[in-house]
């Protein structure tokens, strides 16, 4: 299995080495396809888009509580359909170093075992789809590193995550993603993103290394309004077959891993992007929601979330 992963990684690296040159600000850009997606994210998944050079993007993301927990109106009303609680909150900034390279830092509450996450991310777009179809896809590579800044609990009987027995390294989670996207005409865009997650600290029944694939899509309705969708399919028997049962008490006895799915719409006002979505994943960052989603849509365990992105030219 390790050889397979190595092979896949090498294949991606070879592709990077043979790609067509990317566009830069001074080259005429008319021949490239723009805005495969409107934003650098599609609900939770990173998109293939990068920020323009010298553009600063301030982002606020929020995931409320369960909308209809167990399809119980009492539960729903008690929490006012989830609006009275916050499953995850993200504040961050991203910056375009060049037209193809962006970096970012986010602070999230965290919805999994690790909380108070600081996530650093970098994304490099190395291939751009062209209008004449000489290059039919766009590709970008993204990497992120999350560190949990939650206080360690010195009580050894508590959850293992709280005590970080292995030291500071136990706080780290990494992700690497390859985004392959195509814009089909003016209306539809599709993206597939093989993703690798590495968690330094996991439960005994789990694996450090997780390989998944994200699928994201956008349907443009008007110039301003689009419908977005993303899902993350793990290549991990425990998660794919929902046979995995996290035994951590914090998750509850019947918890099972679920495929994170989200659907929503986004509004582009020029300078602002607003997203409102429904998703079963509580976490926002890939290092958080991909390995830790246990919420069941069929039980009404989905939530409303929103993201506001405001761009500034620096």
């Amino acid at each position: 299995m390790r050889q397979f992963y190595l092979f896949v990684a090498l294949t991606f690296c070879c592709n990077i080495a043979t790609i067509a040159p990317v566009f830069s600000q001074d080259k005429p850009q008319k021949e490239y396809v723009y805005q495969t997606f409107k934003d650098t994210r599609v609900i939770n998944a990173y998109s293939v888009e990068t920020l323009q050079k010298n553009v600063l993007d301030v982002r606020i993301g929020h995931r409320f509580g369960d909308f209809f927990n167990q399809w119980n109106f009492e539960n729903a009303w008690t929490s006012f359909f989830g609006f009275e609680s916050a499953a995850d909150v993200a504040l961050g900034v991203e910056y375009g170093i060049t037209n193809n390279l962006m970096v970012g830092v986010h602070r999230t509450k965290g919805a999994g075992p690790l909380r108070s996450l600081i996530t650093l991310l970098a994304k490099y777009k190395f291939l751009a789809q062209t209008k004449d179809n000489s290059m039919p896809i766009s590709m970008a590579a993204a990497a992120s590193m999350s560190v949990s800044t939650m206080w360690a609990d010195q009580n050894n009987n508590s959850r293992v995550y709280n005590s970080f027995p292995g030291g500071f390294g136990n706080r780290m989670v990494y992700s690497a993603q390859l985004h392959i996207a195509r814009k089909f005409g003016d209306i539809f865009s599709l993206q597939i993103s093989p993703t690798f997650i590495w968690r330094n600290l996991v439960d005994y029944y789990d694996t450090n290394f997780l390989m998944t694939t994200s699928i994201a899509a956008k349907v443009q309705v008007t110039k301003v309004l689009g419908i977005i969708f993303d899902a993350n399919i793990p290549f991990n028997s425990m998660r794919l077959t929902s046979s995995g049962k996290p035994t951590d008490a914090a998750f509850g006895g019947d918890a099972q891993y679920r495929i994170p799915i989200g659907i929503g719409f986004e509004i582009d006002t020029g300078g602002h992007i607003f997203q409102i979505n429904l998703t079963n994943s509580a976490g926002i960052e890939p290092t958080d929601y991909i390995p830790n989603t246990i919420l069941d849509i069929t039980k009404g365990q989905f939530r409303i979330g929103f993201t506001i992105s405001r761009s500034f030219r620096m």
Partner: protein
Amino acid sequence: MFGGFKKTTLLGSLGLAVVFASFTLRQDNSSKEQFYLSDDDTVWGIYEKLGKIKMNTVNTSIEGVSAEKGRDIIYNGSSAKQDGNGRTSNQSPYFKCTACHNVGRELNDLADISSEKRLEYAVENDLPFLQGTTFHGIVNRKTFYNDGYQKKYGHVPIIKASNTDIRQAIQLCATQCAQGRELEDWEIESVLAFYWTLELKVKDLNLDADGKKAIEDALTTDKSYAKAIHTIEDHFLDKSPATFDEEDKKHTVTEAEKKDVKRFKNGKAIYERSCLHCHEGRRYSFFDLDNSRFSFKNLLSRSHKSGNGSLHHVARHGTYPLAGKRAYMPLYPLEKMSKSQLVDLQVYIENMAAGNDLTK
């Protein structure tokens, strides 16, 4: 007897002396070399020979001034620092000079600056069709921010001063139009030095044989300087007129106009060379436009509206800076987009929004 002879002799001698003297004078004239005009002679070079004093010369006593740095500022928004170590910060986070100004020639006939001729030239030579006047020949102009700018904003000291001072005009553009930082003295001189590389040459004037002869004769004979100067001045405009269309009247496209293929093609050229120059790929604006029906439908709804967001208003008045969003779109004076061309653009948008490509 001898009195009559004396008179005849006297008069005859006088006449001969005059004839001899005139021959002598002619020989003096023919000793000065004939001046021949070359296509690469600069207009200012000819002007100076004709006695005019050169204006807007670069102050080379300031350290670090160079045309190369000026070019960098125009094209890239920044340059090497004055001492050559490192680069300056971007002049503007929103625009570069080439967002609104071409650098090369924009017209076949520099004396006929109709926007229709300008668009024709842009299509033939694959140029953007922009709101600002080209930098080509800017040092040959006498005034800047003319007409409508002075009428509307002339009460503002820097705008009034910029009318006759090219350095003030450069600074005004940098700080107000581009909403960027002030340029330092050496940066302004460097920009001016770059402008001088774009000065008009004789070949730009399209002089006919008579015109060239008039100038050559003037410089050969040292006569008729005024005629030579007028000949040159007749072949280019020494100012760029800017008439604002204050009449905020929305035009409703008629059915006949909608089917007019020529209007459609003009509108397509304007959309691609003007609108998309800034709006495609969010190059200079976060309001992005492309060739999708979404963009055309959005613009169509704007063309039917009145008010600040309407197509007509935005074209004639630009947009306004907002709190937290200083950059704004500059307006098109009538010389840069005529009323007829705005109708052409509307015709194009209406047809494309309905999916009618009249060129197919």
